[in-house]
């Protein structure tokens, strides 16, 4: 373990996010009127896991120095779809859930194909595909409504062994089944390489295009898991433009707070998860301190602004003025 310095540096962002989250959550739970009970944790976990899933979706793309501004729209689309098809007999429910996840992956694949093989900029492309996905969501649910299999919903939003929130277990399973294999696969390494330097990755024979394309598919898949989860929580489908937009923006905020570089090539989905949980806790902190809820958006904004300004600490390490402009 002589390379511990290097390893620590590599995971610094993730560890910082973890520490900040634990601190904030301790203050939150400590000052909560009901105290640190299983109920408080369960409610907080359900809200946090939803954003964590969307933040993970964003992470995949951001690692390759891309950006997916359609994650919120895929979330809303899959939410509306799930409120139609995740119903009925157990077989139907399972088929429905699989269908929802496949839809998300297809949405991601379409965006990815246009960005990678159509050679368009990710920002504009995902704005446009996002509009399409939102339109489909609106066609599915012109007015909020629908339902979801309640047994399944309870299983995912309830508690395991009466203590641990099931949503956290579900998130852990998602991490173990999707993130860990991805990180240790050839495609995962390629995604990091593309994010660090596309030219060097290409010269080293890394499958640049395959990796850049697959991250969009994974992003769509993760957003669909989020959409399914949203349906479990609300037990209905709603094509809300405000929801779609804010989940997209929150996912970027969570990714940044979680130490993932928007320039690509560094950070991890684990960091993004803690970033998301931290972002949710920030919003809830004021509520605990019994301040006027009117101040909540401003407080959230100022904390976000302060947190992103911390990113400029690296300026102190710059020796040559020219390095500013890279």
């Amino acid at each position, binding site marked *: 373990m002589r390379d511990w310095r290097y390893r620590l540096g590599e995971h610094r962002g993730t560890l910082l996010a973890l520490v900040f989250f634990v601190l904030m959550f301790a203050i939150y739970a400590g000052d909560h009127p009901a105290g640190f009970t299983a109920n408080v944790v369960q409610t907080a976990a359900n809200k946090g896991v939803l954003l964590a899933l969307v933040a993970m979706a964003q992470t995949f793309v951001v690692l390759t120095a891309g950006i997916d501004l359609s994650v919120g729209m895929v979330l809303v689309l899959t939410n509306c779809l799930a409120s139609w098809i995740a119903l009925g007999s157990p077989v139907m429910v399972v088929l429905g859930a699989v269908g929802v996840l496949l839809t998300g992956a297809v949405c991601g694949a379409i965006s990815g194909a246009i960005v990678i093989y159509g050679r368009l900029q990710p920002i504009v492309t995902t*704005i446009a595909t996002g509009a*399409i996905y*939102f339109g489909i969501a609106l066609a599915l649910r012109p007015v909020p409504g629908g339902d979801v299999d309640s047994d399944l919903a309870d299983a995912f939003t309830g508690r395991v062994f009466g203590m641990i929130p099931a949503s956290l277990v579900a998130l852990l399973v998602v991490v173990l089944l999707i993130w860990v294999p991805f990180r240790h696969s050839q495609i995962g390494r390629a995604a990091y390489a593309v994010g660090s330097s596309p030219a060097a990755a290409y010269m080293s024979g890394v499958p640049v295009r395959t990796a850049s394309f697959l991250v969009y598919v994974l992003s769509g898949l993760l957003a669909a898991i989020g959409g399914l989860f949203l349906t479990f929580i609300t037990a209905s489908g709603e094509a809300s433009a405000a929801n779609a937009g804010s989940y997209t923006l929150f996912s*970027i905020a969570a990714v940044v707070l979680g130490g993932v570089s928007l320039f690509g090539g560094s950070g991890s989905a684990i960091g993004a998860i803690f970033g998301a949980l931290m972002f949710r806790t920030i919003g809830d902190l004021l509520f605990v301190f019994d301040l006027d809820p009117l101040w909540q*958006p*401003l407080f*959230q904004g*100022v904390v976000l602004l302060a947190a992103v300004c911390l990113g*400029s600490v690296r300026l102190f390490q710059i020796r040559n003025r020219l390095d500013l402009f890279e």
Partner: protein
Amino acid sequence: MSVVAAITRSALWRKIDPAVATAFCCIALLLFLGSLYSSSFLSPEYLLQQLKVASFLGVIATGMMLVILLGQIDLSVPWVVAVGGMMSTAATGWGPVGEALAIPFGILCGVGLGIVNGFGVAYLRLPSMIITLAVNAVAQGLMVVHTGGFSPQDSSSAAMRFIATGHTLLGIPNALIVWGVVGGATIFLLTRTTFGRAIYGIGNRERAAYLSGVRTQRAVLVTFAIAGGLSAFGGILLAGYASKAAQAMGDAYLLPSIAAVVLGGASILGGRGTYIGTVAGVILITLLQSILSVIQIEEAGRQIIYGAVIIAMLLLYGRQRREA
């Protein structure tokens, strides 16, 4: 024969950007398709009305274009627009002096937020996507506290209504004249001043611009301040048009303003793009939205067609060069 050759070789021909030409062709095509549905699409009243509606997006997209030319992006547009509208209507409620200063005050608030954006990008070297997102959140928080805590006036002043909805000479809408003035100033700024050269230079390569003696950090700060002021001014026009300001009034302008700039042939990576292209993009998007709603396609269908058309047009002329 030789005349054609002379024209194609002339400087004027070469100056025409194929992307801008395609955008104008798309506008003509849209109008043609619309006129097949109803001849009223070609009536002067309809076209003037569209240009009036387009001028709100036009003013906002001008600021977005300046920022995109730098190779940055401004995601704080939604709430800076709302700040412009809401602060100017609030100032209107402060009595005669407030009413007289409502428009400059609203713009000034936008410039202030733009300066925060610019400081973060230029001096703190934060990615513009993050810092403008954070400023957007702060602006939203400020406005929520402002409306909830002080219940300010939300109806706009006579002057605001005049510049947004009035007509002066020859029945030309005032909003269009305002956009014309803003656009003329921007063209002058971009093509005839050293500041304009600096914007293109920074967008191409900030390092090179710095080494050539441009004070790049100050230029970036000023550009973001201008963009903030223009977004707020767009909000003031919108508040005048709707005769009141509302919290979510800017939400519908972020994505169209980016799309308009990019459809106008500007590179989202910075350093390349003309104002005439942005004008084409703004008109194109406004016409598209208007025609889709006139032929009574539902909101769902409108969104799908809107997104598909943007992608189709970008695939037509917005593709990047193949790498390696």
